[in-house]
């Protein structure tokens, strides 16, 4: 066990995986000599060499496409896109090749690969270094979309993703990269990709959240002594229906918190799914606290993302209902 930040935990996970399996190749912009702009791949070039830790030309389309080819040929590629905001030139590859390959070939080709990319706010990056684009991936059939909320989960979910025989979009909340340390095993371990995590038990309401919003939800609930159950989804697609439904049926009140904008977001899908299956258990409308439905602004980012005041307003509304 070592006290690790999320960055250190991810680095440790990549190191464990690469040590074990020489088919794993990292590639991306500045991932080698520079160790990645957030240092997630720091030290790996020195240990594994340039054949396995590749500083690529600046072309997201190429990084993803190149990784797809490697994985088609029996390697396990782990491409990094420096900021999720820059992934769009690779979206044709992600949607048309990566996500569909297994289905359209009926499994003739499978694609074990993990596309890592930092997302969300936290660094005052403005419209092009802060986007929360998870729904572009969750609405693409064939992708598994994972997002950790703490260092322990980050490493365990990453190692499970690497073992999966299907493509994973691994969204790393950059605001949590250096947000705190926790005890993380130095050795190889996994966290179940198909299981949400009940991070706090409670009776009065269930809060569904994930990734960058989790620590905020937790601190808000604790500080204000709310008797709330908190579920960290960990995997957005396919999400863990059973854990969610058990929580909803227990408390009958649901709040969804995410940093991405509200309209057509993950919250909308969760809300619809819960309504379709458990309307009789609900004692109040399902509420959402999310990022605002505007591009994320540079100077006023803190007003854009969910905060304690907005979360508490929604909780109070639900409790009074």
């Amino acid at each position, binding site marked *: 066990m070592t006290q690790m930040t999320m960055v250190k935990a991810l680095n440790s996970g990549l190191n464990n995986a690469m040590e074990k399996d020489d088919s794993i190749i990292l590639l991306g912009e500045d991932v080698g000599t520079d160790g990645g702009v957030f240092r997630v791949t720091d030290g790996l070039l020195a240990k594994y060499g340039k054949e396995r830790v590749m500083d690529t*030309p600046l072309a997201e*389309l*190429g990084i993803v*496409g190149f990784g*797809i080819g490697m994985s*088609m*040929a029996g*390697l396990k590629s782990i491409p990094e896109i420096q900021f999720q905001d820059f992934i769009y030139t690779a979206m044709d590859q992600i949607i048309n*090749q990566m996500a569909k390959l297994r289905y359209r070939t009926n499994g003739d080709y499978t694609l074990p690969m993990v596309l890592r990319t930092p997302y969300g706010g936290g660094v005052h990056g403005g419209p092009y270094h802060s986007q929360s684009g998870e729904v572009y991936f969750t609405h693409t059939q064939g992708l598994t979309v994972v997002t950790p909320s703490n260092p322990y989960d980050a490493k365990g979910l990453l190692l499970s993703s690497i073992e999966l025989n299907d493509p994973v979009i691994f969204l790393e909340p950059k605001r949590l990269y250096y947000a705190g340390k926790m005890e993380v095993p130095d050795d190889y371990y996994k966290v179940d990709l198909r299981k949400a995590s009940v991070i706090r038990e409670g009776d009065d309401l269930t809060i569904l959240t994930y990734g960058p919003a989790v620590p905020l939800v937790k601190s808000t609930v604790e500080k204000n002594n709310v008797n709330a159950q908190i579920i960290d989804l960990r995997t957005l697609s*396919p999400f863990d229906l059973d854990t969610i439904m058990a929580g909803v049926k227990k408390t009958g009140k649901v709040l969804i918190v995410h940093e991405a904008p509200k309209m057509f977001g993950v919250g909308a899908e969760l809300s619809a799914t819960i309504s379709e299956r458990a309307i009789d258990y609900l004692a109040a409308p399902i509420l959402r606290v999310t990022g605002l439905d505007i591009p994320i602004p540079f100077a006023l980012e803190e007003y854009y993302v969910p905060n304690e005041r907005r979360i508490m307003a929604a909780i109070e509304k639900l409790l009074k209902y």
Partner: protein
Amino acid sequence: MIEETDISKEGLLTAYKNIVMERLFDKKMLNASRQGFLPFYIPLMGHEAIHIGLGMAIREEDFFYPYYRDFGVLLQMGIPMDTILSQVFATATDNEIGRDMPDHFSLKKYNIGAVITPVAGHLTSATGIAYAKKYRKQNGSVITTFGDGATSTPDFHVAMNFAGVYNLPMVFFVENNQFAISVPTYPTEDKAFNQTYEETKGAIYKKAEAYGFNGVRIDGTNFIEVYRETRKALENAESGPLLIEAMTYRMGPHSTADDPNKYRTTTVVEGGEKDPVTVSQKILKDMAILTDKDIDDINKDMEETTSQLIDKYEKAPKPDKSTMMGNLYEQEPWYISEERGDIQ
């Protein structure tokens, strides 16, 4: 000029038969699409010499990533006819169980990639496959084919750059049929609308130089030249990539969804001197390998073979609807299991 080649007489005759077979299949499949047996079809006419030359050149240790107009390459490579035609006609026995359009083959066990519709969408995948070959120190090279239209895409330029940067064992092969649907590859005068229009002003084969490797232009109507140049390129690719631009002419429409009479006067017609079938006959007659009688016999023979096969596959059963939900993920998500109920 009489061609010289290391291919045996039997090998050359087989190649010629496959050229004829591809032409006849093409006509019959176009016909099947007009009759409603195929909802969509990509014609091949004009590409036969390229396809058969490629099929002769590709070695067992090579990996081939084709595009959607490469039917004949598979014929010449010896892929079983049942595998090819069950895919084209999307039958129940298709290894993709009818999930993708005609000529979108996926044949991993033959070292063939999964054909993708978006133009050039496979080029960066092919470079990644070449990287895997190099990393694993495997024998052979990767060859990927695409049309002239693909050379305008970012995928082409990114793939070429990566291939140059990592000095990959691969051959980029452009089947230049001179049209991206309606737009000509190189500057062409359009009198009706008083414009000159084109996909590119610079020669495609020269674009390789900027990425640090060589490009060559070859005659795509001469199957022996295609074979010779491609085989040489595959053998040499272990020391670095090459771009080949094979010149031909798309004698038919782009697909069954367009009418070329709207945008061009077709200058290469069937039986004309630039028709790859005619060119092939002339080459083999000059080499004293083929006689007029052989040509008639082969035509008759292939006519019968292809008719029987088309008849069989256009009437073959389609996949059962119960197959359509499978193989999206290795472990099926709960909502897919639920949606199975919607197709009963």
